[in-house]
C-alpha cells in the first residue's frame, strides 16, 4: 500500500488484504525510493496532497512513483482505487483523465458494476457480465478521454467495469458521474495496471453491505497462486 500525505484508504486496503484476503501487507511511504519482494502495488483512495491543483497531479511526482512506473513496465501488478486511479492517469500509466463529477458535488452512494471481462489478473474471480455492488465515494470520478482513445480502449477490451443498474443494464440513469460509456474501471494495454473509481475495499465484507469487492483482491491472489493462466 503506497501512503501519500493525504491518503485515507491505505488503512482500509491494508485491512482487506491482511484480514479478509489473508495475505501479508506493508505500507510504503511516498518518500521511499525502493520496495522489494512486493507482488502487487496498491495506490489507495484518499486526497493525496489535499487534491490541490488536480486530483493526483502532485502525488505522481513522489519519489516512490518512479519505482511504481518501473515495476509496472516490468509487468508487475498495479491497482489504483479512486484517488489511486487518478494518480495512475496523471502518471501516464493509464490513458485518459478523471474530471469533476457532472453534478459538481462529492458523491457517496452504492453503485452497481457490470464485469466486462473476466480473463484478467483483476477479475478472474467473477463471471462475465456479473453485477457487483460496490461503493462510490468521489468528487472527480467522471472518466474522460478523446473519442479516438475511447475507441481504442473499447476495441482493445481494456474496459473492465461499467456502471449499470441492479439488473446489469448499462443506462444513463445508472451513470453516477458522467463517465463516458459508463466506464468505471480500465486496464492498460498490457493488462497489468488497473484503475477503478468505486471502492472494492469498502465492499469486501457483508457486514458493510456487500462482499463483492473482495473478488478483485482474490483474483490477484489466484493470479499468483498459478490457479489462473490470465
Amino acid at each position, binding site marked *: 500500500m503506497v501512503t501519500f500525505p493525504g491518503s485515507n484508504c491505505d488503512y482500509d486496503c491494508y485491512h482487506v488484504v491482511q484480514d479478509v484476503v489473508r495475505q501479508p501487507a506493508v505500507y510504503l511511504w511516498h518518500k521511499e525510493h525502493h520496495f522489494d519482494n512486493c507482488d502487487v502495488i496498491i495506490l489507495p483512495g484518499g486526497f493525496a496532497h489535499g*487534491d490541490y491543483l488536480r486530483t493526483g497531479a502532485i502525488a505522481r511526482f513522489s519519489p516512490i512513483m518512479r519505482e511504481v512506473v518501473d515495476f509496472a513496465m516490468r509487468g508487475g501488478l498495479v491497482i489504483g482505487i479512486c484517488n489511486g486511479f487518478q494518480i495512475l492517469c496523471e502518471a501516464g500509466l493509464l490513458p485518459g483523465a478523471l474530471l469533476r463529477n457532472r453534478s459538481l458535488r462529492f458523491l457517496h452512494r452504492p453503485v452497481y458494476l457490470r464485469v466486462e471481462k473476466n480473463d484478467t489478473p483483476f477479475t478472474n474471480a467473477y463471471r462475465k457480465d456479473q453485477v457487483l455492488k460496490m461503493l462510490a465515494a468521489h468528487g472527480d470520478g467522471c472518466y474522460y478521454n478523446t473519442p479516438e482513445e475511447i475507441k481504442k480502449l473499447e476495441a482493445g477490451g481494456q474496459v473492465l467495469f461499467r456502471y449499470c443498474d441492479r439488473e446489469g443494464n448499462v443506462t444513463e440513469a445508472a451513470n453516477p458521474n458522467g463517465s463516458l460509456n459508463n466506464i468505471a474501471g480500465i486496464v492498460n494495454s498490457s493488462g497489468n495496471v488497473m484503475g477503478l473509481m468505486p471502492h472494492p475495499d469498502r465492499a469486501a465484507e457483508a457486514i458493510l453491505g456487500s462482499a463483492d469487492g473482495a473478488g478483485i483482491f482474490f483474483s490477484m491472489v489466484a493470479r499468483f497462486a498459478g490457479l489462473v493462466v490470465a
Partner: protein
Amino acid sequence: MKEPEVNIALAKKLGLTEEEYQKIQGFLGRMPTYTELGIYAVMWSEHCSYKNSIALLKTLPREGSALVAKAGEENAGAVVLDEERVIVFKIESHNHPSAVEPYQGAATGVGGILRDVFTMGARPIAALNSLRFGNLGDPRVRYLLDGVVRGISDYGNSFGVPTVAGEVYFEDCYTGNPLVNAMAVGLAKRGRLVRAIATGVGNPVFIVGSSTGRDGIHGASFASKEITDESEEDRPSVQIGDPFTEKLLLEASLEIIKKDLIVGMQDMGAAGLTCSTSEMAAKGKAGIEIDLDKVPLREKGMTPYEIMLSESQERMLVIGKKGREVEIREVFEKWDLNCVQIGEVTDTGRVVVKFLGRVAADIPAESLVLGGGAPVYNPPRKKPTYLENGVKSVKTPDPPKDLGKVLLDLLASPNIASKRWVFQQYDSTVRTNTVFGPGYDAALLRIRGSKKGIAVKTDCNARYCYLDPRRGAAIAVCEAARNVVAVGAKPMAITNCLNFGNPGDPEVYWTFAEAIAGMGEACRALETPVTGGNVSFYNEDPTRMVYPTPVIGMLGILDDIDKATSSHFQTEGNWVYLVGETKPETGGSEYMKVLTGQVAGVVPTLDLKTEKKIQAFVLNQISAGIMESCHDVSDGGLGVALAEMCIGNQERKFGFALE
C-alpha cells in the same frame, strides 16, 4: 504602528465591562498593556470563560462509572469501551462564522472539533453534525445550506473521517443566524490519553502546524456578539480551513504521543495562542514564557496583539519533554509541518510574552481562566411573555377528512423529508467501520478486534424547547437515547451544544436555566452523565432570537454487533409492535405546523420512569435476538414512522397493514 491607548473606552470596545476592567488592574497591580487587555478580553469572552453559564452547567450530572475524564477537566469527556480502549467525543458550535461565510465557517467548525479529539491522543473515527436554517423558500437560506454542507463534506472527506449521522431542521427563527454544530468521536488506548497541561520547568513549548496569519481575530469575542449589519465589514477575519494540513497534523500528533515525547498538548481553537498558553499553564499550576519573534508568520508586520489572538487553523501547542526536542522536530519534518520551539515552561505561574526583545504581556495564568479569575455571573431570569399569553392553550384543529394527504404533506415537509441530498455529499464509509450510516436512527460503527459496536446520534426538537424549555430539553435527551436504543446499543453518556440567544435578556436566560434543569433530570434518570460540551449564546439577528436549541450528542455501546437492528423493514410477513402508550398529544408537532402554520400547544408529557423501562425492555428484546428492526416514533408521529420503515430500505420497498 503605535498601539491604541488603553482606557475604559477601549476595554468596552473589546467587550469588557467597567467592573471587569477594574478587576484586570487588580490582578496586574497596574494598568494593562494593549496586548494584555486584548488577552483578558478574549479569555473573559463568553465563548472562552462560560461566565454566564458555568454556574448552571455545574448542576448537571458529570460522574458515571463509565467515565474516565470528568467534564471540564479535558478537552473532551472520555467513556470506557473495554480494558484497552476509551472513547472520546464532543460537540461544538460554529454558528456565527457560518452565517458570514458558510463554506469556511462550517469547514473550520469540523476542523476545530476534530482537533479537540486528537489533541487528547485519540484517532477520530466518526464525525456528526446538527444543522438548522431558516425557511428553504429564501434564496439566502439555500445559499447558506449549500455552503455549509459543502464545507462539512470537503473538510471531513479530505481529512478522512466518515460523517456518519446528523440532523437538518428548517425554522424561520434561524433565518439570520443558522446553527452549525459539529461533533467528533475518537478512539484512544486506555492510559495513553494526553492532558492539556504544562508541567516540568524548562520543558520546551512548541507551536506546530500551519503558520499564523490575521485569520479570525476576535473570533472568540466575535462569537460573543450577535450578528449585526456592521459585522459585515469585519469579514476578512473569517478563518480558512486546510483539511490536508490537518490530516498531516493528526498523524504527526499521534506519532509524538505514541513515542512518548511530550508532556501535554492542546489545539489552538478560539483565541489561538492566548487560550492554549493560559489554560495549559493554569492547569499545570506552572508558568509559560514565549517569544513571538519565533512564531512562523504568514503575514508581515503582525503585532503581538494579532499574533496572540490570531485564530489561524490547524495549529497546536505542544509541551515537549526536555531533551527530546530533536525527535519531536523529526516527526513534524516527516509530515512537512512547522515545528518551532517558541519558549519553555517556568514555575512563575505567569504567562510571559516577549516581542522584539521587550515584554508585551506578563499575566498570572490563573487570573485568566475559567475556574480561576474569570468572572462568573448569574444573570436575571423572567418567564417569557409568549409563554404567559396562551401559546400553550392553542388547540390542534380536528383532523381533515383525507388523512392520506396529510401523511404525504408531512413526508414532503423539509423537516421530515429524506436528507439524502445532504448526506450523499458526505463520505460516510471511509475507514470501513460504518455498519449503519446516515438514514438510520443512529450511526453504528464496528471496532476492529472486538465484538462491540459504538452508536452515536445528535438530536434536539427545538419546537418543544420553545414551548416548554424544561420538558423539551428532557425530551431531547430521551429522543437521542431512543435512537441509540433502536439500533440495539445501551445509552452511556452525552455531550451537548447549548444554542441560545442573548443571556442579557432575562427571558432568554429563563429558558436557558429551565433547559439545563430538564436536561439534568433526564440524564440522571437514564444514567447518561454529561461529559462536556459547548455553550453558544447571542444566536439571534436584529429581528428575533433563535428557539432555545440544546443539541444532545448521545453515545451508546453495543456488546454484540451481530445483534444490531436496522431501522427499516427487512422481511415480509413479520409482525409490527408499537411499544409505549399513545396519547392525543400533537402540541408543537410538525402535523400542527403543516395544518395550521403554527408552533403552539402543550408539549407531549414525558414520564422518565416509563421512558427508562421502555428503553430497557426494547434493549432486552434486541439482545434476545427476536427483533429484526426498530425505529423510534418522533417527528410526524406513527404514520410517518411506519412510512419511513417502508421506504428506508435501499434494497427493497415494503408496505404494512395495520388495524
